[in-house]
């Protein structure tokens, strides 16, 4: 495995980093979509995130790494039937790559070929969706993903369960994961159904400040020349981020909402005319995760304002004749709702 670039050594791109950390703190926020210019560190940031993931307790020997603390319907068949006394162990939260060109059978799982050939046994070999359960599923160049793979993903991402009915197998197993996608909008648009599965979406732009660009080149160069030494040098900062995420996860449920946050979130969504309730829910969830990351005891309007662009950007109804970008529209609505004159 190649050594990943440290998360804390990524220069700038604060919105992207925050969105990824929010998803790491509260996985129910939904996924993160990172869209933007080439060479802006999209993949770098997401791969770096893997190194920051906290450990999670899992049932020993369970191929789907079930959560021992989960209520019964959330477990796989094997753990469900096995009674309540599991052996447990800790493992890092999985971050699974779904590479382009992955075949359907590897994504959703298929007949175990080796067992079938050698023993004549019908056994299920879990796919990438099973591996990603309770963790992250990362798709680079998400807009180049083939349609039938997208279809398979959509259903599982919505239901949190992978149902395999193929090749004489009939299997269902839990598959709840955070979908993380990156891509370049010039390569094509995403299907609206897939877009809808992402909780947060981030627009990354090339930094235009000279100092920042110099800094990017310097750090990246240092990394390329001696990866191990570089990672060692940034280890302390990365651990600090990791501890922050762990702490934020632990205290997430103790964070209250300031009195008018809910109302303002609803007003914001109404002003922008977003469909459904999901926008509001995600707004509040993301704001809470951010407050937790910042060590606050309460979600305030500041957090709401900060997460609003990421949460709402891809939920606006598309108006092809409106020249102003969605970010500008959100900014306008934020001013209207949060700072009424």
């Amino acid at each position, binding site marked *: *495995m*190649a050594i990943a670039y440290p998360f804390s050594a990524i220069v700038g791109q604060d919105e992207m980093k925050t969105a990824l950390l929010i998803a790491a703190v509260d996985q129910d926020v939904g996924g993160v979509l990172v869209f933007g*210019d*080439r*060479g*802006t*560190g999209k*993949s770098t940031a997401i791969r770096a995130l893997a190194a920051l993931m906290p450990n999670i307790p899992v049932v020993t020997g369970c191929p789907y790494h079930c959560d021992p603390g989960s209520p019964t319907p959330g477990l796989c068949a094997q753990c469900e039937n096995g009674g309540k006394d599991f052996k447990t162990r800790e493992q890092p939260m999985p971050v699974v*790559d*779904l*590479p*382009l*060109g*992955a*075949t*359907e*059978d*590897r*994504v959703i799982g*298929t007949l175990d*070929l*080796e067992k*079938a*050939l*050698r*023993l*004549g046994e019908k056994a299920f070999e879990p796919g*990438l969706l099973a591996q990603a359960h309770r963790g992250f599923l990362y798709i*680079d*160049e998400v807009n*180049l993903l*083939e*349609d*039938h793979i997208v279809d398979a993903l959509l259903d599982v991402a919505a239901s949190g369960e992978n149902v395999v009915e193929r*090749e004489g197998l009939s299997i269902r197993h839990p598959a709840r994961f955070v979908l993380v996608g990156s891509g*370049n*909008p*010039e*390569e*094509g*648009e*995403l*299907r*609206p159904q897939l877009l809808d599965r992402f909780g947060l979406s981030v627009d990354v732009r*090339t*930094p235009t400040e*000279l100092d920042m*660009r*110099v800094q*990017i*080149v*310097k750090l*990246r*160069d240092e990394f*390329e*020349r001696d990866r191990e030494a570089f990672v060692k040098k940034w280890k302390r900062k990365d651990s600090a981020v990791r501890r922050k995420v762990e702490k934020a996860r632990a205290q997430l449920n103790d964070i209250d909402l300031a009195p008018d946050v809910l109302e303002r979130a609803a007003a914001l969504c109404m002003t922008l005319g977003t469909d459904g309730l999901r926008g509001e829910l995600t707004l509040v969830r993301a704001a809470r995760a951010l407050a937790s990351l910042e060590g606050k005891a309460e979600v305030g309007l500041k957090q709401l304002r900060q997460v609003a662009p990421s949460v709402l950007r891809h939920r606006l109804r*598309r108006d*092809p*004749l409106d*020249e102003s970008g969605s970010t500008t529209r959100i900014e306008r609505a934020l001013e209207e709702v949060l700072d009424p004159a």
Partner: protein
Amino acid sequence: MNGEAAWQDALLAAALLAIDPAGLGGIALRARPGPVRDSWLESTRELFPDLPWRKIPQTVSEARLLGGLDLAATLKAGKPVAQAGLLNECNHGIAVLAMAERCQPTTAAHLCQALDRHEIQVEREGLSATLPAAFALLALDESVESDEQLDAGLAERLAFHLDLHEVGIRDLLESGYPLEDIAAARSRCNAIECDDESTRQICTLCLVLGIDSPRASLLAQRAARAAAALAGSHRVSETELEIAARLVLAPRATRLPATEEEEQETEAEPPPQEPQESEGEQQDPGQGEGMQDRLIEATKAALPEGLLNQLLQGGVRRSSGRGGKSGQMRRSRSRGRPTGTIQGVPRSGARLSPVATLQAAAPWQPLRRGAGDPPRQLKVQRDDFRVVRYRERSESTTVFVVDASGSAALNRLAEAKGAVELLLADCYIRRDQVAMIAFRGETADLLLPPTRSLVRAKRNLAALPGGGGTPLAAAIESAAALATSLVRRGGTPNVVFLTDGRGNIARDGRQGREAAREDLPAVAALFRESGVRGMVIDTSPRPGSAAAELAQQLDIDYLPLPHADASQLSEAVRAASL
């Protein structure tokens, strides 16, 4: 740049690549196939002795690129055996991408990921593996037309962009760099010092030349370092920065370094001639902008003579044809939604379905098994092989050909633009594409290459020119050319003309209705030959015979829509194309 200098640069680029292959990514070589390109490839190959050198054909299948199940070995061993893909075979060596301008988007995406990560992840056919794939890529770009270009994402990851079109046989005087020098340089390369000032200069130059991606600065820095190693020095100096600027940055430039700074120049102090001076100034952090200006001047001065001209030419070529190569227009036949299996041999891109094959073999086992055979072993014969069938929708592309001439042009253009954007807004649901050709004055221009990207469409359509004559024949000709190239790539074009049908400029630029009419039969025949569907939408206030006649000549539908607005237009087109 003259041919000899271009050739020397090409040799230098190859030498630098040999010094730091993984760091520099590779070379994009624009050249026609022929002795010049062959001798460059030959001399480059000599720089990589005993290393893998694999050619990736344009038609490579995903299975071959990434690797997959080795059928013969799997059946023999009784357990899945992986077969290495081309990318893995290239490890530590060189991958030569032939006809890179026609490279499929998925192939390009795989190459990009391998170049980024130096390894590939394979999740196919029951196999799951991460395989090393550290290689340098030589992308041989044979494009002549501007609508075909190397994938932008791929081009960005290759340090050097060379153009050998100007090089003739006569120019091939110099030979390559000796192998010992390169080996020595390779061992030194990583230790070469590149001080902050040099890094800053590279980044400044990028900003000035309008190069957005930080990858360009990184590659330039590495190129400078390799050049310093080759020159036997211990640190990057002005000479090496010049080389990096010429080989890495100049071909990427999107604007000339003059534009914005021009006005300030008059007030700025005279630019320092020597880089040492600007280094000295760095110790004085107090003078923010003044120093910045001088730095830009210094880097400008560092650019070799003639670069500006070259920039201008290169820049124009780039901006006119940017895009057109990305998007998902070219899909191979082996992609799409699997729709069951069929008996057949896994060859020429067809993918084996292991499970169906086993199922087909199962009933025969008792018969095939001889007395002495071990009971557990499966006997699979060629007849049992089942391959996956795919169903793929042929992508349709709506090509708008818009009359932008005369007084009513602005109005029609706005409508056409609106229709394009409305169609695009739902085309990602239908997975279709939109393109637009506008004709006015003496020419017909491809304003929007086939795309489904709303982002790009908006950008390209933002400034639509209008007014002038009506070069109808030229428009039909370009529409036919675009349609034919779309058909060639497996798409289904649907051409929509928005015009009043009254041409007044001939194909060679002569004025007058008569001259224009003479050309029509020939180009109309050309269009008919392409067998493309379409319609003529008559936009004149009083629908008349001219447009109807045109539709007849082109053998496509005729629809008078004198006061169409954007949504009416898009409705009409949608109804016609379904």
